[in-house]
């Protein structure tokens, strides 16, 4: 049995629209997600699917004039949608920590990295300067930075990509947040460093029992770290299940296409599947019918629901539309 307090985030009917030439277009379209304590929830999908939009909506960092957010994002009874800024500032950095993709761009070039971490503590704790310094050193040790005292005084450009991302992580976990959102945290890093950073995130999660939302376009990252997976396409969640299910019997055509296009390390000469076409831009996104249909044109229209709904096909395994039932790859068909 799950305790009620294990539910950290409950996102219901989230719509996030951006204003383009006077009209709002939803980049997140009726998103429902939950995040529990001790869980790493991966949101996966190609670039432009709306993953960062969800992250920005949760933490309330978007251009308020040109963005419309509706629905509920419940954090302990508190609805983050429309929360006023001064209350939100008490939550950001303290209860929710955020890690971004490009660690160089994410750090202020004119500030010592130690001071940037200490800044989080300044706004959420009553530590004095000395205590903040000590805590930063402790955090630098925790995220595996060598010679922390020396690192404290460095500027971002003096550090390697991996070390910069460790600084950003130290910043995000400084106040032991319950929720950590990591938006493509390893995309900008070297492959060898990627694994280290993912290991670090897992360690942090194990120690702090926080819930992590891990946003990525890389299924390899998902396989390695996630507990739950939400696959996102064109602003919608198309499949949601635990990580085992997603990799052992994926159902939605998009999930299957993504998996098929993933290189297998043990098979070097395989032909990688390439998903035809691209993610539609916001304005050109089909608002009716199955949004993925255009990229699997060999599947007859009759296979798709007119208004695709999310179905729970087995406990905890949700799939949008029923087209998966008769889905096959084009290669299979032509090979017969």
């Amino acid at each position, binding site marked *: 049995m799950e305790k009620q307090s294990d539910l950290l985030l409950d996102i219901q009917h989230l719509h996030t629209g951006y204003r383009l030439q006077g009209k709002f277009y939803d980049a997140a379209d009726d998103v429902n997600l939950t995040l529990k304590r001790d869980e790493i929830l991966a949101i996966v999908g190609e670039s432009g699917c709306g993953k960062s939009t969800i992250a920005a909506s949760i*933490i309330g*960092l978007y251009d308020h004039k040109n963005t419309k957010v509706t629905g509920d994002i419940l954090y302990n009874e508190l609805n983050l949608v429309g929360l006023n*800024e*001064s209350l*939100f*500032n*008490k*939550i*950001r*950095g*303290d209860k929710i*920590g*955020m890690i*971004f993709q*490009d660690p160089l*761009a*994410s*750090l*202020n*070039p*004119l500030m010592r990295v130690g001071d*940037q971490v200490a*800044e*989080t503590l300044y*706004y*959420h704790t009553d530590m004095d300067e000395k205590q903040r310094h000590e805590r930063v050193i402790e955090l630098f040790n925790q995220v595996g930075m060598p010679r922390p005292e020396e690192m404290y005084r460095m*500027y971002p*450009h*003096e550090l390697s990509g991996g070390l910069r991302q460790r600084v*950003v992580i130290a*910043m*995000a976990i400084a106040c032991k947040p319950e929720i950590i959102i990591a938006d493509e945290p390893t995309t900008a890093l070297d492959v060898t460093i990627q694994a280290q950073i993912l290991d670090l995130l897992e360690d942090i999660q194990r120690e702090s029992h926080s819930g992590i939302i891990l946003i990525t376009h890389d299924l390899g990252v998902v396989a390695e770290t996630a507990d739950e997976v939400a696959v996102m396409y064109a602003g919608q969640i198309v499949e949601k299940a635990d990580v085992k299910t997603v990799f052992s019997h994926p159902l939605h055509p998009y999930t299957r296409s993504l998996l098929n296009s993933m290189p297998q390390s043990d098979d070097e000469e395989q032909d990688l599947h390439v998903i035809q076409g691209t993610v539609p831009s916001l304005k050109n996104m089909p608002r009716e019918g199955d949004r993925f249909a255009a990229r699997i044109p060999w599947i007859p229209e009759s296979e798709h629901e007119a208004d695709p709904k999310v179905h729970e096909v087995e406990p905890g395994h949700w799939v949008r539309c029923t087209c998966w039932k008769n889905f096959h790859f084009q290669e299979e068909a032509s090979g017969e």
Partner: protein
Amino acid sequence: MWKTILRRLLIMIPQLLILSLLVFVLAKMMPGDPFTGQINPNMDAKTIAHLKQELGLNDPVWVQYTRWVGDLFHGNLGQSYTQHVSVLSLISDRAVNTFWLSLLTTILTYALAIPMGISAGRHQDEWQDQTIQIFNYFTFAIPGFVFYILGLWLFGFTLGWFPISGSVSASAHGFWGVVGSRLYHMILPAILYALITTTSIVQYLRTGIVDNKVEDYVRTARSKGVPENVVFNKHILRNSMLPIAAFMGTTITGLLGGSMIIETVFSYPGMGKLFLDSISQRDYSTLTALILLFGILTLIGNLLSDIIMSLIDPRIRVK
């Protein structure tokens, strides 16, 4: 840090050498010699030749050059060809006038430009920004001298609120009297000049703010729960000031360089006007000294800018 400054100082040595060579060649090519304006008609050719020999004008060029540089180090810039004073005293009088006018102008410029730039950048595309943009189009489109002449005509001649020429009135007496009179003479040119020079600073600051406020590191600061006004002042503004800091050195040395246009329009006896006057009066010794001085000021200005930048921006420090 110190290495950056030291390295930068070392670069200045060849720069100064080249500058002095150029100015020396220029001086040699200009008509006239140290006797110009001093020879009385009764002197015979023999005396002149003797004097020339004595002053070393027949020595090899490089000997003359080293002597000239030596003189410079002793502050000996020669005599003015047209006015019977030393070039040094001529320039130092004018430099004082220019310094006060430029200082007032610079203070007014920053006092106007910084709040305007901040307001425009912060309220991008809102009415504050639009108003400031209109002002900027206006001051950018109108040539400086037209603006100054209009200002002089309106507030000087027509309304008679301000004096129309000079730097201090002859009847001013006592310390405060002189200070007051100086200020009174400077205020109109300083305001007009400041209005023109704000344009670029406002523009740089506005662009800096507009660019920086969408940077990732600003989003990071917000994600830490830093309140918006602190995000603006501590993160956005500091980074947006960098391009302005880059001008800082030349602004400081510009305090002595002055402006030819404003000083000429207001017949203000400063360095810029002296420069134009020495051209029109063919006072080549003064002209040479001024060219050398402006050159040195430019080099020092760039040096100061680089030092200031390396103090503010850790990315350009040499390890």
